């Protein structure tokens, strides 16, 4: 079956069965594939969702955003998004497998992070699993990115 989806601002035609999830049809990292780890997180209509828990067919007519939209392509090469730069500067990744998911989880938080307590931010970021960093630097990087973007 042919499916038309809007991904990162462009219309894409994909071949998918109803049982295929967004994690199956998008170039996201797939981790547990049953909603536990968050590695596949993408943004659908401005909210982060587990791509493995949403069937691709359910995303028709919605605006999907993946990690690929973050770094803007310029003639001088790829420029990192402030969130990506902060992850780099604060050592918020090691192996990098969870990173696209964390970036998509954190991106919608950046607008409201000023009003969030540390506890609230940590609760929000506890949605995704990272087995390298111990999370402290991820929390620091997200705060730093919000600062840099002000």
């Amino acid at each position, binding site marked *: 079956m042919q499916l038309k989806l809007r991904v990162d601002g462009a219309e894409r035609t994909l071949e998918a069965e109803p049982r295929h999830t967004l994690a199956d049809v998008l170039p996201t990292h797939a981790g547990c594939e049953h909603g536990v780890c968050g590695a596949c997180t993408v943004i659908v209509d401005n909210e982060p969702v587990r791509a493995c828990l949403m069937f691709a067919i359910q995303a028709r007519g919605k605006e999907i955003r993946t990690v690929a939209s973050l770094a803007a392509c310029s003639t001088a090469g790829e420029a990192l998004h402030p969130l990506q730069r902060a992850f780099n500067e604060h050592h918020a990744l090691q192996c990098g497998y969870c990173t696209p998911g964390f970036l998509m989880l954190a991106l919608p938080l950046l607008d409201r992070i000023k009003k969030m307590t540390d506890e609230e931010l940590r*609760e929000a970021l506890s949605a995704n699993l990272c087995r390298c960093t111990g999370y402290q630097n991820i929390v620091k990087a997200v705060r730093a990115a919000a600062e840099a973007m002000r």
Partner: protein
Amino acid sequence: MKPAAFHYHAPSTVEEAIGLLSEYAPQDGHILAGGQSLVPAMALRLATPAHLIDINNVEELGGVRTESGYLCIGACVRHNAFEQPIVEGPLGRLLATVVRHIAHYPIRTRGTFCGSLAHADPASEWCLVAATLGAELLAQSTRGVRTIAVEQFFQGVMTTALAPDELLVEVRLPLLSKETRFGFSEFSRRPGDFALAMALVVRGEETRIGLGGVEASPRRIAAADAAVEPLRDPRYSAEYRRDLARTVVRRALEQCS
């Protein structure tokens, strides 16, 4: 693993949805709402429905309203709708307090209030809220609409009074008077994980104590020292769960003293 193949239906009205459900329920057809419990079960092949009737495009199920003393919650209202008080007064604050314990942020953007009730996991926070407050549940099928009292709705672990062809279209929670105080306490191994025990205490004209996560279904208990029959679980003994139950009830009571 990948979910097994199924036929997908996307109705846009309740009429259409219950028509499809009536047609496909005998052929293992099920409702898909937020999908945050059903899709993992499908990925693990614990559930292999032949037909899914996706109600996410049914606009009339997406709303919340107050009517004759009740907060009426439509089938597609998602958890995150309750993060800011959805209604003035103690009920809105109570729901905003409890919602923070439900799974995680990207789960709350998809999962639904009514879906939690229809799923009837013993560890569901919304099931505890419904049981404690005495919710009314509206089930609709091509045979008509009926109201089910919460005391009759939960019938065991992931088992409810809904017939296979019935769609839970709305849940009604009684609004709480201005002076009502409440306390909520939950114990889980990690933030966002399934509750091993949780208690909700609501003190208005009367005191209501609800206990969840401990027994097969959440329920209102008659007194703080009521006898409970904990779930059988190889990891957590009955005595451990009883002990947790005592602790969460005490903590919830203390919050509203």
